[in-house]
């Protein structure tokens, strides 16, 4: 990276964007409720996402109660169990992780990290949040309609999703689909903002290849989302029409309870294709921001520049592009043409190359680094391990011959919870701890943070490792209870009980996290400016937490990439992005020697 060298690269291009016209709030309502400031919108997004995520956490407990202790809880009927599964999956994937990474971290970090005063379209950004909130309320409303929420499984496969045998097939499925459509509309508004802000309103000196990897991850994930969500939108609209108007897009000739329904001639597999054309990029919509954020956490807390920055960027872009041509690996057993399996298995396994490259680069960043094992760093390292685990089981499931016996077993559940549940959540926690001082101006409790990490990390492994085993012995997923099945040994039931107990321990441990956050916010120690000694732009604001318009009087000028740690000869172990080369404090000898070397 030529940017690391200390010669006077003082050239910064003249300003091309006019000073951004900001909306200045005049009342409490426009400042904190209908707010156009990306930072407040980010907090609104994140709080809503975490709140609905807690609902999904409780739902998973209820599921585990049934699985771990069948026949003990009379209030959980089979119908309820399917409704819990469906709502848990949908909330966690769409309403929590997507909204939290893009709406939450995207809104907060993009303007700060690229040196903008706000998002490109603050008003649209505000509307985006309110549409998202409406979608969440519609989702919650589905719990209270007659028949309850839909129990079709989070993939909502027709025909069963809209037939009367499935719980929630009256109002529940309709509200679910409406909520998804609203979510997509709201997300599109936000997503346009993120993309345009990254492309068009960076500060002077901030080239694309100087952006922190957090921004690269969020940016590519947003592009994926803008291109993948349309498929889900179309699928939702067509299923709504099938349900409400009686069209037959997805419905074949079908007999229900001995009665021939009026449907006929539709294609159920069409929905699966549409759903997974959205569904697979969705995995990377969640994973890419996590990749980006974790790269920054590792670089900052090991005091080293990220290893192979350019390769990391291209890996993100290539993973994003490949994610659009792998979707049917979710459909090996769906009855599609078997020849497709070969193509999709090949593309799926190719994704392992850029992904492995990223894991190697994270490890090489740690290599000989001055590692500080504080809470964000622990979570970041936990992510690498977990992601590696989940990624390797992904290689199993990507192969047709191995997937066919393993599909619809607990192995699949373990795989995707490792790779897209636990791994991103570890990054979410790490990122919240990392940026907590920036967002609140206070320092969290390191002791509680470390306690939270160890319980969550070890607990998650105790939950999901046994599940792999359950999958291998053939325990199917989505079964209300195994009953008196002869093929399963007693240990299967014991393991299930153990897993259930662990979910309660891990779940309740999150109270420590919330206590830490609220307590530190209310009465924590005041944090110094830039407590981690980070080089990227978001820590260089004149005030902390950053004020309205982020940058005070004038926008920062950027002279280097975001990873100048341990620059030879510099007196500090990091050089902020916005420090002019002539201002970098150098050891006297070193300055001379670099000068003479250049000459």
């Amino acid at each position, binding site marked *: 990276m030529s940017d690391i060298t200390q010669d006077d690269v003082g050239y*910064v291009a003249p300003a091309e964007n006019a000073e951004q016209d900001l909306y200045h709030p005049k009342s409490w309502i426009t400042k904190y409720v209908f707010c156009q400031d990306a930072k407040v919108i980010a907090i609104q997004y994140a709080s809503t996402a975490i709140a609905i995520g807690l609902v999904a956490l409780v739902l998973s407990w209820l599921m585990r109660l049934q699985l771990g202790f069948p026949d003990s809880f009379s209030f959980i009927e089979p119908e309820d169990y399917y409704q819990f599964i469906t709502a848990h999956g949908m909330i966690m994937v769409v309403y929590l992780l997507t909204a939290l990474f893009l709406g939450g971290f995207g809104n907060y970090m993009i303007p700060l990290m690229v040196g903008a005063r706000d998002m490109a379209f603050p008003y649209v950004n505000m509307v985006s949040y309110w549409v998202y909130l409406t979608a969440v309320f519609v989702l919650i409303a589905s719990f209270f309609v007659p028949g309850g929420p839909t129990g079709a499984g989070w993939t909502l496969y027709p025909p069963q999703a809209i037939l009367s045998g499935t719980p929630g097939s009256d109002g529940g499925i309709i509200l679910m689909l409406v909520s998804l459509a609203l979510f997509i509309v709201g997300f599109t508004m936000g997503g*346009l903002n993120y993309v345009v802000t990254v492309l068009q309103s960076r500060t002077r000196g901030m080239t694309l290849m100087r952006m922190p990897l957090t921004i690269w991850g969020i940016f590519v994930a947003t592009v994926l989302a803008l291109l993948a969500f349309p498929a889900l939108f179309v699928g939702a609209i067509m299923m709504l029409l099938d349900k409400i108007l009686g069209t037959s897009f997805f419905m074949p000739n079908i007999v229900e309870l001995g009665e021939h329904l009026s449907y006929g*001639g539709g294609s159920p597999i069409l929905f699966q294709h549409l759903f997974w054309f959205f569904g697979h990029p969705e995995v990377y919509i969640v994973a890419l921001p996590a990749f980006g954020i974790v790269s920054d956490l590792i670089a900052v807390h090991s005091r080293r520049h990220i290893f192979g920055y350019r390769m990391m960027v291209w890996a993100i872009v290539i993973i994003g592009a490949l994610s659009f041509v792998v979707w049917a690996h979710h459909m090996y057993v769906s009855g599609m043409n078997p020849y497709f399996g070969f193509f999709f298995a090949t593309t799926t396994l190719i994704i392992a190359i850029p992904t492995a490259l990223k894991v190697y680069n994270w490890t090489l960043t740690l290599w000989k680094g001055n590692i500080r094992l504080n809470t964000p760093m622990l979570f970041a390292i936990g992510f690498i391990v977990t992601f590696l685990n989940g990624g390797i089981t992904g290689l199993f499931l990507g192969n047709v011959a191995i997937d066919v016996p393993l599909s619809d077993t607990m192995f699949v559940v373990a795989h995707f919870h490792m790779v897209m549940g636990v791994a991103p959540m570890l990054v979410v926690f790490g990122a919240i701890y990392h940026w907590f001082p920036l967002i609140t101006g206070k320092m969290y409790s390191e002791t509680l943070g470390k306690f939270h990490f160890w319980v969550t990390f070890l607990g998650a492994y105790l939950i999901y490792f046994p599940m792999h085993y359950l999958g291998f012995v053939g325990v199917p997923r989505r079964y209300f209870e195994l009953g008196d099945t002869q093929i399963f040994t007693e240990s299967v039931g014991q393991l299930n009980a153990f897993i259930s107990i662990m979910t309660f321990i891990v779940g309740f441990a999150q109270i420590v996290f919330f206590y830490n956050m609220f307590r530190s916010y209310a009465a924590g120690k005041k944090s110094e400016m830039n407590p981690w000694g980070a080089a990227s732009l978001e820590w260089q604001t004149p005030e902390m937490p950053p004020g309205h318009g982020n940058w005070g009087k004038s926008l920062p000028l950027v002279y280097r990439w975001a990873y100048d740690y341990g620059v030879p000869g510099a007196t500090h172990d990091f050089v902020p992005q916005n420090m002019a080369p002539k201002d970098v404090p150098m050891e006297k000898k070193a300055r001379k020697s670099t000068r003479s070397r250049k000459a």
Partner: protein
Amino acid sequence: MAKTAAGAKALQPGMSGFADDWSSDQRAFKNVHWGKAMMWIFLLSDTFIFSCFLISYMTVRWSTTIPWPNPSEVFGLSVGGVEVPLLLIAIMTFILISSSGTMAMAVNYGYRKNRKVTTYLILLTALFGASFVGMQAFEWSKLIHEGVRPWGNPFGAPQFGSAFFMITGFHGFHVSVGVIFLLIVARKVWRGDYDRGDRGYFTTMKGGYEHVETMGLYWHFVDLVWVFIFAFFYLW
């Protein structure tokens, strides 16, 4: 430190210019204002929506077991006792494509700051758009009178009516939204909001004649989508 604006490099043509722009700071699309960039990206996303609709339509057309109706007969009109196939659609398509022409002229006159002509041209575009939607309503009501419903029709496969109402409805919705926004932009041009840089009622941001161009992008897109719907639905 920073060079003056005069030192800024002129835009380079070809691949080297592309590489220059994308490796530069501040903007990847030089001389493109934010609203225009946003509209392009939105249209890309919208393209995926319409593509999914059209691909789904093709899929159900293959999956259904009942023969597909002959569009030339279903969409024919009888003029003075003579059956003319696709007459109404031909007129609708002609009108919508003409409206793209008037829109392009409006953009041109807008950048010349010719308020009066720009307003007239935008209003003419909106009128074309509204008449397109009107004729679509006529076509819908004619088909409904003949018994075509989303769940079935007397001519053949029930998916014909489903896909027809869904896709033309979604496109018609796009045109209607476009007409509303054209009227808003026309009013702003007429009052001179863009000359004075008045703030928008909702967004509280200043607007300029670029809005006319952004609006134009949307309108051309809706027009282009219609060409595909026309080809895949009416001609196939």
